[in-house]
């Protein structure tokens, strides 16, 4: 059994003392920031990226992914106990989770969230294993035209399917692609958009961009909101759910996992849409839909399963194709590139210890998370009383020190501050930041692949249409774009966006 060998390799890597420690650190940090409203995985991962620079790639990736899926666990705790989403993806968990807590069933709600998250997390990780190998094998046949079309499809679908205005998202992709051009052109050796600064000859650092776009602007946006943080003194006794509870959540958990796994793989969609859709499905399937919003246990199990499954399956396109579907995945991919790993289908064959080590760490991390979240729940709840005015200067500190530390250059810190200003203006104008970062990561790869494709075809653009795989990707792209022009589908998406907004 080949797969067992892979697992043995993976667990061998993940079970070293060092990697176990990074895994624990990652999931603990993830839970922490998941619990705290206003500090999400995007901000945290971008803020910690510079620090992982010195680590071996496997350890860096184990820790960063731990932060990401750990945050999905932590977010539900805040949702249930304080009626505030710790993460946006746990917004719907507030609806019934908080009601359960008010009915004196806080313990059962927390346990339900943890159990369904765990089940979904494990199934999601298994899916990476099952789908990852054939997908990477298929992608190994791709040449330059196929890769170019795949990247176009990834970027367009991430813009079309994501929340909000499609035109703005597409424009943001182009801004990201342009920012990715800064630096020395590999073919001609010419410096582009460097303004004569030697610091820009190697391009804008990935962490500089990520921190500026995500962390800084996020802090300013958060400061605009008035701080409201209720203190909750619930009796969280009785963590064990009853047998009838377990029976009631089995099917919703599995349905939530299925929905989450689907949206996780799709670019542009992720944990938030998954948990929302899972909740709506449960409400539709329920014999008595009026129970929802009043403490229905399915209303906790399904969305929590969905967002964790989505968090795991999002790794599939990232690790096997090298195409990130969301901003967080772009950060993970950026971490790989920073650490000298060439992303794409070759990761599995060229760096098997990395791929399988990270997968194995996800199983271990999910077990750690249950242990961290259930018995230690009291500690996390107490952390909720930390006010944001203590947190945000510390976030700024990590941003500044981290960016300074990569090259020991103050220019990077200035650049990051400047990008932060642009990031805030764009965020205020409702221009989604994720497509920009996706474009930035994929930009250089796209230019390289279109160049190679057209060089080989003697400048004949039909090369993108004669390869059936490439043609397939382009047809999907056009269908996606076309679907948004159809009024019926566009109105449907606008309705979903609105409902999602009102649920949060």
């Amino acid at each position, binding site marked *: 059994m080949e797969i067992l060998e892979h697992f043995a390799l993976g667990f061998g890597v993940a079970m070293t003392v060092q990697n176990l420690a990074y895994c624990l650190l990652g999931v603990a940090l993830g839970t922490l920031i998941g619990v705290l409203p206003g500090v999400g995985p995007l901000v945290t991962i971008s803020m910690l990226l510079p620090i992982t620079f010195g680590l071996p790639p496997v350890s860096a990736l184990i820790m960063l992914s731990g932060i990401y899926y750990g945050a999905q666990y932590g977010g539900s705790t805040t949702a249930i106990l304080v009626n505030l989403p710790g993460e946006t993806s746990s917004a719907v968990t507030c609806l019934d989770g908080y009601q359960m807590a008010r009915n004196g069933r806080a313990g059962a709600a927390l346990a339900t969230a943890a159990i369904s998250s765990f089940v979904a997390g494990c199934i999601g990780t298994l899916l990476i294993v099952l789908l990852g190998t054939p997908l990477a094998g298929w992608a190994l046949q791709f040449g330059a035209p196929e890769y170019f079309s795949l990247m176009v499809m990834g970027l367009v679908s991430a813009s079309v399917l994501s929340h909000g205005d499609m035109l703005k998202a597409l424009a943001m992709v182009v801004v990201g692609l342009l920012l990715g051009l800064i630096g020395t052109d590999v*073919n001609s050796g010419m410096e582009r958009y460097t303004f004569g600064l030697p610091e820009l000859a190697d391009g804008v650092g990935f962490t500089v961009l990520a921190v500026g776009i995500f962390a800084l602007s996020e802090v300013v946006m958060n400061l605009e909101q008035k701080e409201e943080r209720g203190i909750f003194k619930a009796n969280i006794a009785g963590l064990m759910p009853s047998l009838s509870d377990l029976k009631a959540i089995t099917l919703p958990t599995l349905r939530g996992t299925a929905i989450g796994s689907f949206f996780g793989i799709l670019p542009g969609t992720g944990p938030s849409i998954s948990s929302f859709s899972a909740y709506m499905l449960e409400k539709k399937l329920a014999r008595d839909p009026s129970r929802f919003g009043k403490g229905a246990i399915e209303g906790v199990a399904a969305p929590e399963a969905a967002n964790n499954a989505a968090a795991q399956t999002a790794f599939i396109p990232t690790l096997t194709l090298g195409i990130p579907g969301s901003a967080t995945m772009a950060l993970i991919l950026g971490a790989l590139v920073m650490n000298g790993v060439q992303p794409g289908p070759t990761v599995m064959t060229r760096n098997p210890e990395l791929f399988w080590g990270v997968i194995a760490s996800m199983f271990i991390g999910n077990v750690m998370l249950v242990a961290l979240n259930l018995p230690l729940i009291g500690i996390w709840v107490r952390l909720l009383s930390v006010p944001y005015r203590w947190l945000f200067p510390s976030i700024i500190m990590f941003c500044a020190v981290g960016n300074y530390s990569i090259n020991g250059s*103050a220019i990077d810190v200035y650049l990051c501050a400047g990008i932060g200003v642009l990031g805030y203006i764009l965020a205020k104008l409702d221009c989604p930041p994720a497509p920009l970062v996706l474009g930035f990561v994929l930009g250089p790869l796209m230019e390289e692949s*279109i160049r190679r494709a057209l060089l080989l075809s003697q400048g004949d653009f039909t090369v993108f249409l004669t390869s059936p795989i490439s043609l397939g990707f382009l047809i999907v792209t056009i269908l996606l774009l076309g679907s948004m022009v159809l009024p019926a589908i566009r109105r449907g998406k606008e309705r979903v966006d609105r409902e999602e907004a009102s649920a949060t």
Partner: protein
Amino acid sequence: MEILMKSDVMRNKDVLSGLLFMGLGSIALYISLDYRFGSTVRMGPGYFPKILSGLLIAFGVAILIKGVRQGGNLAGPWSWAPLFLLTLAMVLFGFTIERLGFVPALALMFLVAAYAGNEFRLREVFVLTAVMSTFAVIVFIWGLKLPYPLFAWNF
């Protein structure tokens, strides 16, 4: 069709985004005029930049038109003051770390950054600065072994 007032345009987030994208695209296009376009077979360094700049300007125009016809307004006022203070905090850190050392740079940064918050309690900020600076020294200087002097005087 309603006639848009000037003040409405300045609050219309789609019009503003359109203008911003058009501006960014124009700057990028202007700079790329110096880069050789090349041919499709042998692309010059200007091939990609020019196409992308043009695309960005086109998107900007489309968003602007959409904004004029049915644009949404900005949610809430701009918070220039916090943005300025946080940016200043980072710039100060970059400027002072090589001149005064790690600890003074951190302290300055915390003071300025904390002022961006909704509430500023001086005593609390001092405690926070002390605690987080100690933490940063332990993590970055002792833990990650970054080679920065704690205090310095380089002018």
